[in-house]
């Protein structure tokens, strides 16, 4: 079997294992989405009843909720490995580390997509933002944002899963890295919702694609070092 197919088999096996464990795992997925929705609700209280301001801030708040929810998601995807020596066993399997990274990143992206997708209706309702019209560009933005976040999150979650004070270290290391992703995703969302008046949606999506590609390559190249003892 060609090496590429072998890698794909391994990546899919890992992604499937993560998805299975996620869906079965004590409703961890649901609680993260609930947490992110709660964050959106709190933003509503923070930015006050003036619905005009809320609608204007909605894309920014949405993506902040996705980022915070995302931190919990990628951390959880690696925490389940650390429970009973599974992470060490994963490092001992004779498989290509890039395939392991691809599998974990795929699972992470899927969980992020689920999170982002479910938050859109929450934002539409809470902040009165008509998201229906521009569903295609928004979908593309969420996909690109999820892949980018999962690409970085998988590497950094792998890096910090066995560390002391990992709850602090993961956001502390990750948030500066995903700043451009947050910025581009919010601007793309704003442009999409407003029907792309200045024609800058394409530019922001290109930035997201660039970010995703760079981070996926960097993550794949370095994940092996993070798995090592």
């Amino acid at each position, binding site marked *: 079997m060609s090496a590429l197919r072998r890698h794909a088999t391994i990546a899919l096996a890992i992604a499937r294992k993560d998805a299975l464990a996620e869906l079965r795992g004590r409703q961890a997925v649901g609680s993260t989405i609930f947490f992110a929705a709660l964050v959106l609700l709190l933003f509503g209280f923070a930015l006050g009843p003036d619905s005009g301001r809320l609608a204007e801030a909605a894309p920014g708040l949405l993506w902040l909720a996705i980022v915070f929810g995302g931190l919990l998601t990628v951390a959880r995807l690696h925490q389940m490995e650390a429970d009973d020596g599974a992470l060490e066993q994963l490092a001992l399997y004779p498989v290509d580390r890039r395939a392991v990274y691809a599998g974990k990143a795929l699972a992470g992206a899927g969980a992020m997509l689920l999170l982002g997708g479910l938050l859109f209706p929450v934002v539409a309702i809470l902040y009165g933002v008509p998201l229906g019209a521009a569903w295609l560009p928004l979908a593309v933005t969420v996909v690109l944002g999820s892949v980018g976040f999962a690409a*970085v999150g998988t*590497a950094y979650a792998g*890096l910090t899963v066995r*560390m*002391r*004070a990992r709850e602090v*270290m993961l956001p*502390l*290391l990750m*948030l*500066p*890295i995903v*700043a*451009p992703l947050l*910025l*581009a995703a919010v*601007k793309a969302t704003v442009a999409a919702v407003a029907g792309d008046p*200045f024609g*800058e949606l394409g*530019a*922001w999506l290109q*930035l997201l694609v*660039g*970010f995703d590609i*760079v*981070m996926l390559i*960097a*993550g794949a190249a*370095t994940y092996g*070092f*993070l798995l*090592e*003892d």
Partner: protein
Amino acid sequence: MKTRILGFAALLAVAAATVNGLFIVPADLNQGDAQRIMYPHVASAWLAYLSFGVTAMAGIGYLVRRDLRLDAIALAGAEVGVMFTAFAIWGGMMWGRPVWGVFWQWEDPRLTTTALLLALYAGYLLFRRLTDDPHRRAARAAVVGLIAAIDIPIVHFSVIWWRGLHQGPTIGDPSKILNPSAPPLFVLALMGMLAAFTLVWGYLMIRRYQLARTEWQIEEHGRLGRISAARRSFITESITEEAAP
């Protein structure tokens, strides 16, 4: 001995550049004296980028050759780099306040990028402090340094676009100074400050590298001491076992 000479040279160069920047070079026409901050601000920013470039390169070097000396260089680059980043941000604020009336200017892509730089590499240094096994720390810090380094251009790009895809760079942009139309004295002053700061940078990097290596040797001696102790107690125990069967 050579480092000591470099140190004195750096000291003189910085003193000269400071005097020049503060008193000798004429003030800017419309910005007045506030423009004098631009020299240390821009010089610090460039040294910060240079430092983090060194950290990324040394990190990759370690991942390839697993030589802890490269890790020591990476650490030196990060620590010195964080200091220069802080200076660049401070300079940007000291310049922004008189010229724009506000300490922090979200519009200025350089400031926001530099702030993110500080966050990235402060995180790098904190991460190193929380990992104790030297080889594991070196390998993982190399990854953190590498991903941070490739994030910087993306950040810079996105912040410039973010400020408005069609707006030109702000007035105080360093490239304004360096373009041929800028008065030659200004360019000279900046070049002088940059040269002086680079000398200091070289001196500090060497000293910080030496410190990292010395600290490693102390740890290594400690490790060896513990292994020798374990062996000695093993030998004495087996002797006593034989002595009193």
